[in-house]
Every structure is written in structure tokens, then in C-alpha cells.
């Protein structure tokens, strides 16, 4: 798949070693973006599979879901004038049962090569994404906008080449970063702004070569970065998962 090549490129950039077979890492990528978990259900009117994300309001649609093209055909059905006169909020479920289907597959604009996804557009070569707008090469992610080459991310806007980043804007080449803005080449950072080449930084701004909010210089930083990259990619290759993330790295549980 096209998206596998992009996953290999992004992991090469972030970890210094490329990982293949994106699907093998799906569970790990979704561990902190559970809304992006796409499941398939049978259409209410055919044998075809309807894709639905694990988002409360999509799941609430229940069993009466159909494919996007099926929904448009069903939209030609209407109730009678007599039923319209009799409509109240309490009588609506019964009177509308002939027309009240819908679809979680919101496909907007032009899309090329996007698969097993719902609520997206315009996109190129995205895989297993939900609420993905104006983006390309995104995998296992939820709510991304104007972004490219993201894997396991949620609520990322104007981001590129990131893995497991959340609720952030303008991130480039980042891993495990959340609630941050305008950062590049950062690992395990929270609530940061204008950081470059930094790791384990929390609630800080405008730093370069920083570890734990302290600028340590290029050589020292690159030394630690190499150790961290090797540990992450080694464990990923072995177990297809990694035990630390930006949410648990700060909890007492993480240091037990």
C-alpha cells in the first residue's frame, strides 16, 4: 500500500530506522487516539460494509446505518402528507421509520486512494482515519486538518511527519507531543510552543536542544536522542508497541 511507504519514511525520520507493515502497529498507534478506531458494520440495506469511528455521536447512530451512496438513494423516499400532519416528537420514530437511515461515511470533495475511513475529504492515500480534512498520507488518526504524513494522531492541525501527537498545531517531525504549537523534532513534550530539537519538556516555550526544560547543548542532546530513539524503535520492532507515551510518562504509575 502507498501508505506503508509513507509510514516507513516517517519512522526513518523520527526513529532513525524505518518500520514496515503499518497494520502491525495499528493497536499501538490508536492507544491514545481511541476515537480513530474504525470498525465495520453491515449496511442496513445491503451486504456492504459501513465504516464507523469509535466516536460517541457516530456510535449513537446504531444499526440503521448505510453506505454514503445508499443514503442518497434513500433520501428520495418521503413520508405522506397525512403522516406529516400527524408528526410529533413522540410519534416521530414510528412515522419516520421508512426514511430515517443515515450514514457515518461523510465523503467530501475529491479523494484519491483513501480506504477504510469515514468522514473525510479532500484527501489522498489515507488509511483508517476519521474526520480527516484537507490532508494526505494519514493513518490510524482522528480529526486531522491540513496535515500530512501523520500516524496515530488526533486533533492535529497543520502538522507533518508526526507519530502519536495530540491536540496540537504546526508540529513537524514530532513523536509523543500533546497540547503544543509550532514545534519541530520534539519527543515526549507537553504544552510547549516554539521548541526545536527537544525532549521531555513540559509547559515551556522557545527552546532548542532542551531536555526536561533545560537547554543542554547540541552534542549532549544528540547523545540522549540516540539512546531514546534506539530504545523506542527496538521495543517497537520486538513487541509492536511501546510502554511510554506522553500521557503516562508523567504519572506516578510510569515510575513504579
Amino acid at each position, binding site marked *: 500500500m502507498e501508505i506503508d511507504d509513507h509510514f516507513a519514511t516517517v519512522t526513518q525520520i523520527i526513529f532513525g530506522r524505518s518500520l514496515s507493515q503499518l497494520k502491525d502497529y495499528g493497536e499501538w498507534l490508536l492507544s491514545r487516539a481511541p476515537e480513530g478506531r474504525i470498525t465495520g458494520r453491515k449496511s442496513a440495506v445491503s451486504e456492504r460494509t459501513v465504516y464507523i469511528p469509535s466516536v460517541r455521536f457516530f456510535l*449513537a447512530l*446504531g*444499526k440503521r446505518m448505510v453506505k454514503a451512496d445508499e*443514503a442518497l438513494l434513500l433520501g428520495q423516499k418521503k413520508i405522506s402528507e397525512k403522516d406529516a400532519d400527524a408528526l410529533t416528537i413522540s410519534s416521530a420514530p414510528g412515522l419516520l421509520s421508512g426514511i*430515517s*437511515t443515515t450514514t457515518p461515511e461523510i465523503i467530501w470533495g475529491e479523494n484519491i486512494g483513501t480506504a477504510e475511513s469515514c468522514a473525510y475529504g479532500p484527501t489522498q492515500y489515507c488509511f483508517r482515519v476519521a474526520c480527516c480534512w484537507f490532508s494526505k498520507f494519514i493513518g490510524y488518526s482522528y480529526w486531522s486538518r491540513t496535515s500530512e504524513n501523520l500516524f496515530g494522531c488526533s*486533533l492535529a492541525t497543520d502538522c507533518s511527519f508526526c507519530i502519536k501527537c495530540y491536540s496540537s498545531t504546526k508540529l513537524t517531525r514530532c513523536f509523543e507531543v500533546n497540547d503544543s504549537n509550532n514545534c519541530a523534532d520534539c519527543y515526549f513534550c507537553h504544552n510547549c510552543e516554539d521548541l526545536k530539537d527537544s525532549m521531555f519538556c513540559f509547559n*515551556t516555550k522557545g527552546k532548542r536542544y532542551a531536555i526536561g526544560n533545560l537547554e543542554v547543548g547540541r552534542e549532549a542532546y544528540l547523545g540522549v536522542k540516540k539512546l531514546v530513539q534506539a530504545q523506542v524503535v527496538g521495543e517497537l520492532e520486538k513487541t509492536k508497541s511501546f510502554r511510554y507515551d506522553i500521557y503516562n510518562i508523567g504519572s506516578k504509575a510510569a515510575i513504579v
Partner: protein
Amino acid sequence: MGKMQENDNATLAAINRAWESTSRIVLGGGVCPLQELEAYLSRYAEPCRIEKSALSGKPVTVFGNYPKGTRFILDEEMGDYTKMAANAKLDINSIKDIDSAVWALSEVRLYAGNIVLGNSGFVTQSTRVVDSTNVFRSSDVIYSKNVAYTQIGKYSESIFGCVSAGKGTKFSIACAEMYETSRHFECYYVYTSSDIHYSANIENCQECLFCFNLRGKRRCVGNLELPKEKYDELKAKLLSEARELLRKKHSVPSIYDIIAGK
């Protein structure tokens, strides 16, 4: 009265004013104070959590799947945090891997809640709010005003109990997944439309009630196009019923209940 309490009261007053005018515009009349509808309006948004600040003990609004034992601080406590973090002694040579880094950096690992950025004002019990005004119990709100019980609102105005309100969403109550839409109630997936109630999968439509999977239609009830007088009569009847339910039961059946046939 503390400054924080004053700010909270001002936010609630402004939000309630916006709620009153939105309910008149969308539901054709006032219903009840906004806070009485909290359970109803919070049904489909992932909830924010209230934690305690590790520095001051004050309540912190956080969003995200943080495990037990995580320490939080308020965004406004950053000054104290920065001083504390600057005093932390970091021995770079002690960091051999992520496990040792986690130990070495225990003093800086505090997570921020109530994150309010840019030119924002009157934001209460909310987090990840950017360039927005009058925001109450919401998360991920950007370039918006008059927002309550909402998760993800961008370039939006007067939205209550909404999820995924995209650019240009205005005067919306209990809706999900919208884009360039105005005046709607109990809807799912409405794009570039206005005056839509109890409907799903609607694009380029005006004045629709109980409609599903429609494109480019006007004045429809149950997908059936009606003359203006007839449509207005049915709309008035249904909105009156909705207002009555909201006043008495503080809830109405949702669009999802209608779809599920409940």
C-alpha cells in the same frame, strides 16, 4: 470575591444571555436556564474532567486520557511552575534511557489544564481554547464565541451541546458534525444549510424538519416538500412541543433516538 470567581460569573452571565437569544432564534422561544440542561447538552461530547492543581489545590479542567497519579497545574500557575522547574537539578549524564529520564525529570512533569491561548476572554471550566470568548465547559474551541458544553468548535458562534462544529456553525443546539450552517437543533451531519431541525445527512438545504439524506431541498418535513404556510404551521407545533419538553423534563429525544426508532 476573587478575580477568578468574578471572571466565572461574568462568563456565565454572558453565556446565559447568548443561550436565551439562541433558544429564541432556534426554538422560537425561551426554555430554561442553560445549566438546568447540562446533562442533556453533555450527552455526546467526551467530558472534561476536573482535577486538583498540584501547586495550589484549585480545580483544573483537563481533557484526555491521563492515568491516575498524574499531577496537574492551572495555566495561570505557569510563573510558579517555571521557577520550580528552573530550580530542578538535572544531571544529563544520569539519562541513559527513557526510564532514567522519567526519574531524573520528576519535578518538571506536570500537565497543564485550563489551557487558554491567544486573544481569549471569559473562559470557564474549559481547556484548549484559542482566540475565543465566552466559553463554558468546553474543549478544543478555536476562533469562536458563546460556546457551552461543546467539544471541538472552530470559527463558530452561539453553539450549545455540540460536537465537531466546523467553520461557520452558528446558533446550534445539540448537534454534531456541522459546516457552514446556521440555526439548527438536534441534527447530525449538516453542511452548508440553515434552519434545520431533527435531521441527518443534509447538504445545501433550507428549512427542514425530520429529514434524512437530502441534498438541495427547501421547506421539507419527512423529506416531503410543503408550501410555506403548511411548513410554518408544522414547525411551530413541533418547536412548541420541544420547548415544553425542555422546560418540564430538561431533555428531548435526540436525533439518534429518532433514527434508532426509540
